[in-house]
């Protein structure tokens, strides 16, 4: 199975690799997946007073498609409001990266990571976590 050019691009030159200060109240951290399953994503967002994501960072343990999915997610998150970020759907990632069916779970994980990071931010700032659909993978 060949990888799409976009997957290769994100994999070779991943955007926004790194770590934000997880103790800061402006930072939300999502850690999803499990080492036993072969993929773990950590996605972090930094949010300003207007609920706009000013920075996003990731680190991923996983296959090329998982790395590309999380790299793309950070690219999309920057500059988005929390509400718009919540609306990112895994199928948008599938489409953008032309992921084959066997790699759809990588995009699902990226969506989960975004939502987990937002909820972490909300809880830190005294808000209720948003009820999430049971993840479908």
């Amino acid at each position, binding site marked *: 199975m060949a990888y799409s050019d976009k997957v290769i691009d994100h994999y070779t030159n991943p955007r926004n*690799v790194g770590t934000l200060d997880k103790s800061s109240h402006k930072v939300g951290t999502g850690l999803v997946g499990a*080492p036993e399953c*072969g993929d773990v*994503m950590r996605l972090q967002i930094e949010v300003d007073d207007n609920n706009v994501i000013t920075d996003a960072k990731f*680190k*991923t*343990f996983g296959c090329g498609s998982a790395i590309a999915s999380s790299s793309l997610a950070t690219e999309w998150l920057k500059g988005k409001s929390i509400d718009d970020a919540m609306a990112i759907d895994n199928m948008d990632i599938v489409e953008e990266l032309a992921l084959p069916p066997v790699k759809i*779970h*990588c995009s699902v994980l990226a969506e989960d990571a975004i939502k987990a990071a937002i909820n972490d931010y909300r809880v830190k700032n005294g808000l209720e976590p948003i009820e999430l659909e049971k993840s479908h*993978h």
Partner: protein
Amino acid sequence: MNLPIYLDNNATTPMDPRVLEAMIPYFTQKFGNAASRNHHFGWVAEEGVDYAREQVAKLIGATEKEIIFTSGATESDNLAIKGVFEMYKDKGNHIITAVTEHKAVLDACKHVEKLGGKVTYLPVKEDGLVDLELLEQSITPETILVSIMYGNNEIGVVQPVKEIAAIAHKHGALFMTDATQAVGKIPVDVNADGIDLLALSAHKMYGPKGVGALYVRRKGPRVKVTAQMDGGGHERGMRSGTLNVPGIVGLGKACELARLEMDSEAQRLSALRDRLEASLSELEESYVNGNVQYRLPHVANISFKYVEGEGLMMAMKDLAVSSGSACTSASLEPSYVLKSLGLSDDLAHSSIRFGLGRFTTDEEVDYAIEVTKKAVTHLRELSPLWEMFQEGIDLNSIEWAEH
């Protein structure tokens, strides 16, 4: 040096040009059916087959009449296991094998279970070797066959075949071995080892795909298998079907070359493998899988902790290797062979198999070392698990969301 570099010689090997050369006449001028007993064309083909039979027999210390040509090791494994089960069912219905066997053996055993047979799947020790005591304890009066592979395809460990055969014989069972990875790479002698049935394949030893053989002992004891393919009664009634003459000639030539060049080649390859392993072990948190004493000369299986195998392979551009990780929604399960050594799933997901071969050069191995080191380092920079490890966080203390 040409890129990409092929280091997946346990999956298949390129054909040796000398093998191809031996095969070519049998496609065109010498195209006869080896079973055509009444004319020149048949005789010429039969001559080619007979010579190949001798070449195969000689490599494993057998006689020509004990070699049954098949379409490959999968067919040989099936014929041996199902054929013995059918032939000896009055004697008993129990077969013993190991969890690290190739799927061809495991699935043939599953089939036997469906037919009412009983199968014991022995676990292996942490180094991949079968526990001989446990083997002996597992034998019952119903045991007709013990089937343990010679050398493992994923980690390369070589089983104590001679000891296993002795235990099987002591209790009146036959001993069969899937020697696909071992024949042509290390000395295999059916008499010295006490082997009753042995499966081998041409394409793992620089021969063509689609041809293999099953060794079936004729003396002490005389072993019989029930045919699984019915038809013209070829191969002493054990495997019907017009013989694949060019393929068989190629298998014969491959066996001859392997026999003549095995000693020097095994030495050269194990030195290269050791260099590869030593260099890659310089990377922190890298682990060689399987017993490092009893093993094939050309395989190295290494886990690079905190990086995922498939992602790693993508970074090892221009290297054709194989990983114990399969990151597809169909199978999130990592290699069952590595798991049976007691490796945790995350280490199994982090494994890479390097399979060296006859055409692997020093320069290619050096290049592979460099590329692998860079790839591991790059992916660890991307890995949240590596960061946690560096910070001293125990990954087992985290509640992971299994998916």
